[in-house]
């Protein structure tokens, strides 16, 4: 693991951190004033629409746009040919991964072949969305339909239809020589698993599968692009990372990043699905062609069929333990699909499958597999939820076989400081044991569950927080309020958690900081909102910014008092010297009164390596044995937050992740028919949980400080979704005796299992 700096200050009490102020953008968001991309109305605006493939796999023989161009009110039509010649160049999008530009471009507008139903083929800009929609239907595409495949194991078979003829498997850096759909084969090993399993008293081995699921943000993808006559490109969009969006667009269009400005509007949910670009480069091409700003937004079925789900998977997990409950060996074989283009989330899947426990011997094989589905994207702890569904059920079964309480079994083997993960890194101080203890002492666990057809399940989850670059700046106003400018798009209240860290550092109130998220021309480079990094890394930048502002304020005070800056004491926002004391606000006023240089600060950081967050979930379910329907009666999420900056929004992350995970566990799936067409591309048939489907979600925040952050923050956004499907599956097993090894555990599937068992 990369060297990480010890930064934790060990403060015993805080003024702002840990309180629950109203979020700074709150009034805008409850009155309808907040501006999301779709709310923009520019003069002379054109509206774009995309033509999408009706086939799961086909060669494009020809595209005839002539009739579409004749429709009155149509301004421009584009296809892949409108992109500059994209080479097989790889753009480094940091933690968002290495992106092959040829593939990214071919995902935005198909090149030669369509690789999934819903794959974008061409786009129209017109006077209204209705006209654009009619024109799109007039584009004639001749297809040669090819055999298609959507199940990951079928796609790995030697006889499978091949998506990319030139693709060869990369096995730990070496290229194999046959055409294949397996883009990547990863392998991690620790110790000696043969010896490990030999020493085991009990071994459990099971196979698992999961369906593709979608992030399900309520705001569809939407963008406005204006390619001006001065060749400056301006993009307003719903993105998790304005700088990452800018980089992708610039690379795809062959322009310098500084020629493009991305304005991040309010974003209506992302969960990992709004990192890759879809509409942005297409709207830009249309704008250049028609000389107007172009707005494009997706309909819901386009979101399901054309944007990233998270992988469907097949997994085999084998774990051995001693009679006393000590784990001795683990082996996992994971195949995750990545849809139409290589580069899925198998890597983190492999890293996470055994990450909660101390395994002396372990081996993990992982496969990134192409198939005729939309190219997968990150979805909250990408790859970890599937892996936990497998591993945590095997752990549950082992504990039962050994007649050991499931929490005690996990405690005995829990990962802790010094534990080495199968992929190499050694944990610093982590809070898994504390989470297990908190679960054990929770009101939920201590209340016996009674009643027929009911069961309780428990499972654990793990995810990283990444670091990466964040920048922010601020100015101190005459009235002592601080204007904060940051680059992290705010999906769930992060403006406030960043502002609170600055306020804490300066010793002022949360509402004495006014945060705003700026465009890419107005703030330094800031990596995306994802990887549970914002409150951690941008928060670290805000802390450093606070030190910068404080240093400058000391200098101003020194000028006022005619003393050396280093003789000034700062405590809780009060600046004092030799019996004089000025509060931050008083000092700010004096700075203006005395005509001193205004205080303007800046900070940029790029913390290396990752920190870690663990969670433990408990669920009580009741199963209707006649229908197979599962009702979640009670649910508790325990998680180590390091330090909860704004506890309400930490709870919100835990609750939201739990409910997404419950949806994944019980009903959500991409349902494909025999032509590999998705049959449930609507909110009605995709069935995300409504509020009538879930109970209140109890939360317990554990605080084991992160040594690499001054206030001990760990990111909390992703871990909450990791444990739920395994937790529900373990609860269903307790209620019915059926070990459910495939997701979703939908009523027909569970009914079949119950009736077959009986």
């Amino acid at each position: 693991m990369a060297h990480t700096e010890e930064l934790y200050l060990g403060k015993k009490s805080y003024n702002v951190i840990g309180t629950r102020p109203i979020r700074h953008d709150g009034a805008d968001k409850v009155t309808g004033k907040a501006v999301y991309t779709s709310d923009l109305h520019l003069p002379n605006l054109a509206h774009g629409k995309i033509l999408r493939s009706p086939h799961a796999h086909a060669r494009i023989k020809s595209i005839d746009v002539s009739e579409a161009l004749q429709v009155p009110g149509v301004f421009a039509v584009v296809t892949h040919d409108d992109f500059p010649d994209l080479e097989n160049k790889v753009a480094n999008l940091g933690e968002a991964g290495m992106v092959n530009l040829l593939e990214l471009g071919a995902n935005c507008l198909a090149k030669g072949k369509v690789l999934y139903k819903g794959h974008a083929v061409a786009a129209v800009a017109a006077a209204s969305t209705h006209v654009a929609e009619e024109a799109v239907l007039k584009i004639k595409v001749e297809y040669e339909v090819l055999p298609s495949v959507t199940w990951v194991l079928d796609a790995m078979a030697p006889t499978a239809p091949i998506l990319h003829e030139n693709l060869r498997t990369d096995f730990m850096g070496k290229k194999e020589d046959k055409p294949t759909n397996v883009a990547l084969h990863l392998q991690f090993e620790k110790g000696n698993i043969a010896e490990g399993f030999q020493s085991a008293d009990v071994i459990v081995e099971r196979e698992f599968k999961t369906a593709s699921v979608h992030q399900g943000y309520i705001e569809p993808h939407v963008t406005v692009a204006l390619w001006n006559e001065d060749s400056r490109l301006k993009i307003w969009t719903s993105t998790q990372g304005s700088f990452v969006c800018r980089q992708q667009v610039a690379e795809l269009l062959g322009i310098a990043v500084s020629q493009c400005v991305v304005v991040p509007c309010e974003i209506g949910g992302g969960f990992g699905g709004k990192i890759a670009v879809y509409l942005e480069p297409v709207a830009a091409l249309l704008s250049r062609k028609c000389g107007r700003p172009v707005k494009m937004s997706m309909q819901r079925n386009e979101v399901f069929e054309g944007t990233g789900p998270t992988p469907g998977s097949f997994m085999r997990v084998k774990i051995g333990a001693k009679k006393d409950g000590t784990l001795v060996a683990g082996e996992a074989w994971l195949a995750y699909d990545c849809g139409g283009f290589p580069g899925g989330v198998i890597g983190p899947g492999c890293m996470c499958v055994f990450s909660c426990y101390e395994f002396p011997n372990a081996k993990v094989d992982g496969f990134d597999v192409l198939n005729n589905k939309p190219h997968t994207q990150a979805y909250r702890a990408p790859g970890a939820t599937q892996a936990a569904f497998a591993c945590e059920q095997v752990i549950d079964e082992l504990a039962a076989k050994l007649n050991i309480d499931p929490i005690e079994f996990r405690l005995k083997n829990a990962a802790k400081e010094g534990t080495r993960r199968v992929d190499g890194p050694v944990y610093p101080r982590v809070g898994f044991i504390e989470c297990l203890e908190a679960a054990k002492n929770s009101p939920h666990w201590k209340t016996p569950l009674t009643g027929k057809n009911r069961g309780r399940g428990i499972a654990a989850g793990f995810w990283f927080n990444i670091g990466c670059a964040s920048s922010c700046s601020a100015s101190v106003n005459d009235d002592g309020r601080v204007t904060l400018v940051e680059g992290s798009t705010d999906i769930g209240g992060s403006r406030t958690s960043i502002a609170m860290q600055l306020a804490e550092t300066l010793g002022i109130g949360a509402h004495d900081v006014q945060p705003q998220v700026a465009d890419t021309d107005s703030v330094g480079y800031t990596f995306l909102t994802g990887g549970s990094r914002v409150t951690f890394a941008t928060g670290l930048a805000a802390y450093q910014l606070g030190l910068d502002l404080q240093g400058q304020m000391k200098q101003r005070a020194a000028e006022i008092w005619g003393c050396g800056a280093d003789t000034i004491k700062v405590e809780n926002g009060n600046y004092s010297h030799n019996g004089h004391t000025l509060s931050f606000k008083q000092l700010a006023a004096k700075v203006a009164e005395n005509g001193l240089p205004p205080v303007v600060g800046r900070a940029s950081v790029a913390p290396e390596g990752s920190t870690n967050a663990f969670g433990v979930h408990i669920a009580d379910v009741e199963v209707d044995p006649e229908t197979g329907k599962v009702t979640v009666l009670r649910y508790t999420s325990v998680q180590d937050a390091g330090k909860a900056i704004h506890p309400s929004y930490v709870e919100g992350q835990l609750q939201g992740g739990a409910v997404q995970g419950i949806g994944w566990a019980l009903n959500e799936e991409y349902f494909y028919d025999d032509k590999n067409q998705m049959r449930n591309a609507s909110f009605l048939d995709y069935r995300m949980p409504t509020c009538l489907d879930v109970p209140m979600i109890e939360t317990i925040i554990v605080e084991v400080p992160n040594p690499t952050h001054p206030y001990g923050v760990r990111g909390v956004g992703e871990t909450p979704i990791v444990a739920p499907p395994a937790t529900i599956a373990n609860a269903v097993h307790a209620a019915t005796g059926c070990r459910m090894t495939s997701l979703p555990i939908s009523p027909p599937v569970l009914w079949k299992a119950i009736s077959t068992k009986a």
Partner: protein
Amino acid sequence: MSKKTHVTATLNGETVEFLCEPRHSLLEVLRDTLQMTGAKEGCNNGNCGACTVMLNGRPVNSCLVLGVEAEGATLETVEGIASHAHLHPIQQCFLEGAALQCGICTPGFLIAAKALLEQNPNPSEHEIRFKLANNLCRCTGYDKIVKAVQAAALELQKAAP
């Protein structure tokens, strides 16, 4: 293209007039013609509730109403909930209870919740969940939304004469 129709309606207490084609939904009219963008489009087929507005005193999905149907109607949108620069208790409770994260579903929830509390000032948790089931939220897990509605019910009861 069919000829545009002239429509007169009352929106948040004010008379509005607009022209629309029969195929324009009330949501399109509100957002694009009248530039009242508080109501959001999440699915455009009645399954998410982000576009919820009040039509003649009833909550509806404005994506499923034609603009021309609004002739003579009384409409209320999220922009009309606060009055005289004061947030309505339901808005205040959403903020204090952190009942929103990304905020895209919030206008729809606020309209539906306000309508619910006007119909039943003291709803059970089940009734709140039943009546809000046409409004999807993907961020919060609903816990804090339901609690905010419960808190608003108490606030409104306290304020009632």
